[in-house]
């Protein structure tokens, strides 16, 4: 009388995979910090950097070697700060290097079952420390947006 086949059938349904289990591609995750490079002599204008080596302090591998006027770099989740070393490899004869510490707090927002939570960073006050002494290539740093909720526009401007 007991439909064992039904029990088996039911188990199949329960254990089967669902669309729910996969975080769909294109779901916005934790936003990276977008840096815009600007000209310190003419603050209205963008000024591209060339061959800028970006490496997180404590990391062996560099994040990227970058040329252009704006870049997105990831911040460190569950940390109060993120440290990056930025070396301008195009400068000659000596390499100009600056190390920055970005101070941030975060709050996490639930997205859905498959993706879980995403983090949103907020700049602390002061929002950065310069870790290197003396003359570097960075002249000034300015924040544009306090909350790093998306990657639609820049959060930080670096004047050089």
């Amino acid at each position, binding site marked *: 009388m007991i439909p064992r086949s039904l029990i088996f059938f039911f188990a199949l349904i329960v254990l089967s995979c*669902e669309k*729910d289990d996969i*975080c769909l591609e294109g779901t916005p995750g*934790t936003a990276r910090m977008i840096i815009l490079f600007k000209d310190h002599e003419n603050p209205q204008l963008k000024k591209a950097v060339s061959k800028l080596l970006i490496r997180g302090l404590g990391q062996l591998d560099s994040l990227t070697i970058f040329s252009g006027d704006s870049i997105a770099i990831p911040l460190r*989740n569950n940390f109060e700060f993120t440290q990056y070393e930025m070396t301008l490899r195009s400068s000659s004869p000596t390499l100009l290097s600056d190390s920055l510490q970005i101070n941030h707090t975060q709050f*996490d927002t*639930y997205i859905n*079952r498959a993706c879980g939570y995403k983090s949103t960073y907020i700049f602390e006050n002061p929002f950065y420390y310069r870790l290197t002494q003396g003359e570097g290539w960075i002249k000034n740093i300015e924040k544009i947006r306090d909350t790093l909720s998306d990657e639609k526009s820049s959060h930080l401007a670096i004047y050089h």
Partner: protein
Amino acid sequence: MKKVHIWLFTISLTLTVSGLSSQEVVAEEALAEEVIDTLKKREKKPYTLRFGIDLSKPVMAQMDKDYFGLELVGDIRLYSEFYGAVELGNEKKTQQSERINLTTTGTYLKLGFDYNMYKNWKGMNNSIYLGMRLGNSFHNQKVNEYEPYELNHYWETEIIKDGPEIREQDALQARWIEIIAGIRVKMINNIYMGFSLRLNRLMSDTRPVNFDNLYIPGFNKKTDENVWGAGFNYTITYAIPIKL
């Protein structure tokens, strides 16, 4: 939606089986009825009160250390083939759901009725039934740890074990309707064993702040995509006949 179709198929299959087996009995019953007719007296069936437990939950609790469950079931024959039915349960389940580890604890109550479609021989009391329940859970949910959703893995993504989102939220509720197909067989004397499949439709739920009810006691897994869920139970019940 695919799951719903599979369920409809399962239920209709159960119905077909029950339809067939009742037909076999009809012929036999026709003979039996002739005898009863001469007496011009309809047999008065007793109000039967049955109560017991769902065996599947303690078994699952034995196999899975992150699960505890207990369900008390009861039903009473109201009139003809209608039974009033109740299920009262308690569950505690810890699970890893993709990036979130959570624990759900709570109690649920289901109230409704069963309609028996199986024509019994005299003295038999088996049933193949369809039923409906209204379910309500009272639960709380705790996020134990989670891994934030990062697209970039330059910095190692740490699993967050404390912080504002690592918390327990209580006074959560969910309400749903169940459609049931099941069988119940008399084993010995007053002991019955039963099995039922349940299709659940979530009506409403109070969600935790900045989170969701990923599991609802009594309802089972809640999905993002639709309001349907599924469940089953495997009961052993003891019947007390009440003659009025």
